[in-house]
């Protein structure tokens, strides 16, 4: 009935309703996913590090931990440094978040469960998620703090650098699937997941993806032991929460795109497609949390060296090999 009502509306109104509906759905998903990730991460790290608290808050499975964390963030004082650029300081977390938000539009959660399936899906995701760099850099720059400035410069260097192998690693998949549409890439994997054809590409994508979302061992822009907290040193309360909401949102994007490109997206037996998709994506997020509990942080020059001297040549090699094999195999 609702769809019949919407179809009677003029086209601009239909578009508006569609945008509103998609936005609310995506925002709802991000918030619920972030709450779940707080619990998920605290719980896994709790097991890895023998922490007692996060395993028991609320008695059963530590379910009250995300609520406690969220309440704490709401109650924290909102501080803006006296000499900060107040406008830019305030809008920076929103800019960082909006870029992640926009990327969700093209992710196919299941067959026919995608807000907008466009034929340049991969390029669109990488293009809009790059905006996060600007948001984070704005925050670091506007804070009027040398540590934040150093963190902001690290962000720019890191994300811009790792974007290159990240994109190159995807080319192998695009060559195999002969499309850039995420939905069609998933459908092309009906027989075999691309992770078996492109293991190197998957490794490069996932490693560079972890760097893109500033997770350990690449959390060099925030590096609390060196730069206090880098770009978000001066942020507190909800503004800080927005940065971390976008971090979790980006983590999910990286995992979701990896699922689509390499792990067959929603494809899988017995269970509904959406469940398969979420299981695969959260498995990759689990690996990110596991790595966080195991590795120390790289140094900034080591991180850049790893990108330019190892990942980038490997990505080129992967493309050349994929092309050669495709030509030879006819």
């Amino acid at each position: 009935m609702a769809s019949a009502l919407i179809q009677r509306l003029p086209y601009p109104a239909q578009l508006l309703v569609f945008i509103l509906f998609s936005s609310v759905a995506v925002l709802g998903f991000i918030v619920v996913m972030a709450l779940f990730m707080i619990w998920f991460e605290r719980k896994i790290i709790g097991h890895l590090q023998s922490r007692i608290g996060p395993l028991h808050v609320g008695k059963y499975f530590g379910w009250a931990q995300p609520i406690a964390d969220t309440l704490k963030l709401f109650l924290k004082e909102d501080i803006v440094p006296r000499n900060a650029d107040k406008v830019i300081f305030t809008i920076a977390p929103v800019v960082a978040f909006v870029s992640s938000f926009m990327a969700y539009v093209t992710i196919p959660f299941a067959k026919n469960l995608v807000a907008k399936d466009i034929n340049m899906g991969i390029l669109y995701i990488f293009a809009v998620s790059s905006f996060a760099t600007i948001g984070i850099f704005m925050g670091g720059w506007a804070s009027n703090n040398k540590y934040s400035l150093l963190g902001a410069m690290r962000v720019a260097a890191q994300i811009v650098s790792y974007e290159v192998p990240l994109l190159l690693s995807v080319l192998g998949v695009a060559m195999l699937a002969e499309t850039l549409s995420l939905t069609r890439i998933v459908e092309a994997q009906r027989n075999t997941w691309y992770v078996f054809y492109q293991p190197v590409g998957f490794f490069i994508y996932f490693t560079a993806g972890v760097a893109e979302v500033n997770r350990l061992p690449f959390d060099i822009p925030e590096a609390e032991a060196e730069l206090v907290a880098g770009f978000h040193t001066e942020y507190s309360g909800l503004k800080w929460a927005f940065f971390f909401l976008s971090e979790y949102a980006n983590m999910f994007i990286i995992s979701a795109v990896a699922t689509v490109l390499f792990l067959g997206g929603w494809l899988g037996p017995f269970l509904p497609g959406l469940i398969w998709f979420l299981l695969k994506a959260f498995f990759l997020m689990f690996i990110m949390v596991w790595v966080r509990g195991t590795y120390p942080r790289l140094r900034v020059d080591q991180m850049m060296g790893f990108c330019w001297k190892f990942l980038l040549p490997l990505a080129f090699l992967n493309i050349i090999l994929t092309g050669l094999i495709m030509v030879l195999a006819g």
Partner: protein
Amino acid sequence: MNTENSPPANRGLLEVERLYLNMGPQHPSTHGVLRIGLVIEGERIVDAEPDVGYLHRSIEKIAEKRTYLQFIPLTDRLDYVAAMSNNFAYVLAVESLLEIEVPRRAQYIRVIMAELQRIASHLVWMGAFTNDLGAATPLLYGFREREDILDLYEMTCGARLTYNYYRFGGVSRDIPTGFVPGAKKFISGFWKKVDEYEELLTENEIFLKRTKGVGVLSREDAISYAVSGPMLRASGVKWDLRKDRPYSVYPEFAFDVPTGETGDCWDRYKVRIEEMRQSRRILEQALDGIPEGEILPPKLPRTIRPKKGEAYGSVEAPRGELGFYVVSDGGTNPVRLKIRPPCFVNLGSLAAMVHNCLIADLVAILGSIDIVLGEVDR
């Protein structure tokens, strides 16, 4: 600090602007009370100058206003991560003035407490150091095992951080019945725990990259800066007071003194890990051979009045040579007390190690020194 001493680097078309950066005192890696003035070009450090004094409590002056006995609890507050070792060094100095003999049981108890303290202190170091490198997991592991040691201490003297346990001539009270079995149980499981730390860190590629060749302190520099403890041994100098200027009953125990080769952060890490294993060896022998008997000499005056003179007592504390120099005029309190803290001296070598390194390296180097600011500032 003069930032104008040498011109900024000119790299091709770009002239690099120098930045003066206050690292600390409110910085997680400077333990809240140390300030390091940094001159940086980008992230590269041109000059680093530690600025201490944010925690100064005039403890040496306070010692002159209190009786000898009243000062023991204050030694706990110097290096609060190794309070037992501080008790130990101070009572050794005063005992040397008093010329009293400590019963063998008390000697054994002292060694047991000191070696447990070494393990507990190295565990805190391991956690803080690796946390500075961005790994939080070893910190939690270190604190997990430290809890067992604190339980043993609590069982013995009722305190978990500041023990006030050593006395002139012995210790304040005997170890309780459950102590020896509890300590044996702890050390029997501790082998596996050290292996676990090694598995997590020694074989970790990123940890190796962050520590090998970072913050090298040559053998010559280590000696000329009067560095002591694991830092000195990591630079290849086999010097350990427990072997080279023996005190208490240490000569009765078999243990090795681990040394490093290059004096970098990696060597300092390896030396401390190995020291935990060696402490465990000493503990095994001491717990097996602990004799029965008194814990204090039978005739000890209620008010201590050492004869006129001066004495220096020192121990191999977890961070290096910890010494107390006490001057007596025959009264009830020292007329002068001077502390030789290993941290303060070791921290002096920081500038020699950090030149031209990155900010991330500075954090690693500072962590590898193992500073406790209570001891640095006194």
